[in-house]
Every structure is written in C-alpha cells, then in structure tokens.
C-alpha cells in the first residue's frame, strides 16, 4: 500500500524517472539537441572534470569570498544605521525612506556606477554586494527596534538600565529575531546581484561562478552553464541550511516561539 511507504520513496522515484527520461530525450534526438539541452550525464561529466581541474573550486571560492566579505560589510554598516533610523526621527524620515526605495532596486543596477567609481576591480563587485545587503538590514533593524515591546524597556529602565546598556542588553536581544530575518533577506539579495554582476562583467581580479557560467555561454557549452546553475543553487541552499536556518531555529526554540 502506498501509504505505508516511507515519505522519501515517491519523490526519489519521480526524480530518477525524470532524469532517465531527460537523458533518453537528449540521446534519441538529433545532435543539435544535445547542444541545446545537455543530458544529465554530460552535466555530471562537466562537474566531475571541473572539480578535478580545480576550476570549479577556485571559482566557488572567489564568489563565496566576495559574498561573505560584502555581506559582512553590508551587515556591519546596516545594523548601526538601522539603529540610528529607529532612534532619531529625522534620520528615519530621510535615510529610512531612502532605504525603503533602494531596497526595491536590484543591486546589479549599481554595476555601471561601481565600475566607473572603482574600475574593473574587486571593490566594484564588493560594492554591488554591499548595496544588496545593506538596505534590507537597515530596514529590518529599524523595524525590529521600533517593535521592541515597551514593557521590556520600562522593566529594564526601572532596574537602572539606560543608554548603551539598554541597547546592548535589552533592545538588541529583543530585536534579534527580526534583525536575523533581515540579514537573511539581505543575503538573498546580495547573492542574486553578485551572480548578475559576475555574468555581466568579467572582473579581472577573480574568476567567479558567474564568470564560469558566462564562459560556458561563450563556448556554447550548455553542460557547463547548467552545471554552474546547479552549483549556484546548491551554494544558496547550503548557506541557508548550515548558517541561517540553524541560528533561526535556535533563536525561536530558546524563546519558546516554536515547540
């Protein structure tokens, strides 16, 4: 009976059928078909070769380094700016509003300006990643600080807490869940924009995943293109799986927001 099967069985069967069907579809077609749609086996073969040659690892490293450094800068700037927005009315009415607008702008739109300002160099890519991260973080910090229950503040104040102590021991801990989801969103924005930027311009200082994908396009090697797409997806999933999700779950669990 179907209901007795363990849950992963059906999806696995479907996935295998899908891959076999895909492979069959490519192999039974004319040669041009294999160029347009690479077979799963071709993608795997590319993956294996790129892994052995070190090309894939070095591209992943270059991209990850850009992402992590840019994200760290964006978050490090975004947290104090967001706090300032929450704290000072006129900053909220200026910078806060600007952040709302800039957040809707895909940060790859900054590429032309970044190239002009920084040249075709690492700084230009970093700038694009920072722009992708910072506004989401500013908005998240501002909103979560403004939403800290006044009761916590009152309780802390009567115990003699104020100034930096109040910020570091009450406001930030209380705002942390919201700040974290803002960072997660900033990370997602930065990741997408970084890919776009790497495909869009060849940055001479490093050959990232986007550049690898673009090279595949120029060589008409769709196995490489789809292989890189898979890696990009995998990296995104991994970042969520090993970084954001565990922190979020721990945070929610330790405060009883979840089972």
């Amino acid at each position: 009976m179907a209901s007795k099967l363990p849950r992963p069985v059906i999806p696995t069967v479907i996935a295998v059928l899908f891959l076999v069907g895909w492979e069959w579809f490519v192999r039974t077609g004319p040669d041009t078909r294999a160029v347009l749609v690479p077979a799963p086996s071709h993608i795997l073969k590319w993956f294996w070769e790129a892994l052995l040659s070190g090309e894939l690892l070095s591209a992943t490293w270059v991209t990850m380094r850009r992402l992590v450094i840019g994200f760290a800068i964006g978050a490090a700037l975004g947290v104090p700016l967001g706090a300032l927005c929450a704290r000072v009315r006129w900053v909220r009415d200026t910078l806060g509003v600007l952040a709302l607008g800039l957040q809707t702008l895909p940060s790859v739109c900054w590429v032309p300006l970044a190239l002009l300002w920084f040249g075709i160099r690492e700084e230009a890519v970093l700038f694009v990643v920072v722009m992708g991260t910072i506004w989401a973080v500013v908005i998240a910090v501002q909103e979560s600080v403004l939403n800290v229950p006044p009761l916590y503040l009152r309780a802390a104040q009567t115990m003699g807490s104020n100034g930096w102590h109040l910020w570091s021991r009450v406001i930030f801990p209380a705002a942390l869940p919201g700040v974290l989801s803002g960072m997660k969103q900033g990370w997602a924005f930065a990741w997408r924009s970084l890919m776009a930027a790497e495909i869009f311009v060849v940055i001479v200082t490093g050959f990232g995943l986007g550049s690898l994908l673009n090279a595949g396009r120029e060589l008409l090697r769709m196995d490489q293109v789809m292989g890189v797409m898979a890696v990009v997806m995998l990296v995104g999933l991994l970042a969520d799986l090993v970084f954001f999700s565990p922190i979020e779950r721990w945070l929610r669990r330790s405060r009883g927001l979840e089972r």
Partner: protein
Amino acid sequence: MSSPHAKSTAPAALTLRNVTKRFDGAAGQVTALEDISLDVREGEFLVVVGPSGCGKSTLLSLLAGLEHTNEGEIRLGEEAVVAPGRDRLVMFQQDALFPWLNAIENVLFGLRLKPDLTEAERLESARYYLNLVGLGNKEKARPHELSGGMRQRVALARSLAPNPRVLLMDEPFSALDALTREQLYGDIQEIFTKRKKTIVLVTHNIREAVCLGDRVVLFSPNPGRVQQVFDVNLPRPRRMNDPALASLAAEVTTALSSHLAK
C-alpha cells in the same frame, strides 16, 4: 477610615502632593489622575484599588519616574522623583521577563546594574531570591518553560533582588488562576513580613486589596481621584476566606458602588 496623610508613626517613603496627570489621547485630553495627595510610609504595604481606567497604572508609572506629572510633586524621602531609579522597582502585570534570558539571568539583570557588588555576591543574592519564591530548582529555565505563576514568581524575585527601597506592583496577580494567586498572596505576605519592604500594589480586585494591604486606598474613575482610605488591622498572614476580611471587602465594595451610582 483614616486620613490619606501619614499618621506620623513612620516617616513617609513616598509623598504625593496634588498630583495631576493628563494624557493627550487620540480622542482628546484625558485626565488620568486629578489632585492626588498621598503618603506611603516606610515599611508599609499600601494597596490602591479601583475599577479599570481609574489611573492605577499611571500612578505607578509616575512613582517609578517613567512618566512625569503635569501638576504637583512626588518625592522619595526628601528627593523629587524625576526619572526611573533602582530604588523603585516595578513588577508588571505579566510577561515583563526577558525571553532571551533564563530565570537566574533575569534575576541577575538588576543585580548586575549594581556596581558595588562582586559577581559572586550577585549570584548568591539571585539564588537566595529564587529560593525565596520557591524556584531554586528552576535556575536555568527559560520564561516560556515556566507556568504563568512561576513566571510571576521569577518577576517577583527579579524585583526584590536589587533590594529596592520601594517595590511597585501593577496588578501582578491578575493574569493568574485563583489557586496560584492564593499561593502568591501567602508568598508575598511572608516576604513582606520578613524583608520589611515598602510596597505599593495596585489592583482592581477588592478582596485582594484587603487581603494584602496595611491600608487600602480606593480610587474612583473619570478622573482618577482618591475616594476613601481604609485601614486594615487584621493580623498576618491573612487568608482570602477569612470572614473579617470579607466584611471589610464588602465595606469597600459598598463605598465604590455608592460612588459609581452617583
């Protein structure tokens, strides 16, 4: 019935003179408190009772220094109350515990703001007060892992631990079930007798007021005013089902409804 002013047996810990507080709400100006004059004696358990909206929470916020008077003045001993201070801790109705800290860390929060203590002394003191409220075995529990009654006990320990001169309590038991409440009435009276604290507690529950207070101040609403003050000369610990307590509660209820009927 007695005068709202101190009978000079003990010095006044808190003094309110002609205190008026107004709020600018969405529906225009509200006078939450009007012309309140009241003394709280050192070591007294004063209970303010009145229907909801009569300005009880406002009164405590003023005493805590979280809000400011429009008219009149409030003094703690000789000093004017202008800002929050460790000498006046507030225990709120519910869930003012910090969910990112466990029970003992919550109790330590106020203690860590006292620079003259060593960390070992703080820890010892936090343990002492957690034990005092019967939660010595729940040190590491997060607030969400505790029942409502236990949470309020931790909150009580947190307010007591820094040894404030005055403890202000805003309907601290109203969110609890009757059984838990009864237990806590016992606890708080025991602590009051043992520690000789000055306590101002506000509640809308007349029985509770009579059970806990040395004096009960009845507030009337719209605007909040002192209507009548009752002395409660019953021995402690008092129990809710004591008949003497019931007859006094009936007296307060009559006074309140006669005012509301006007």
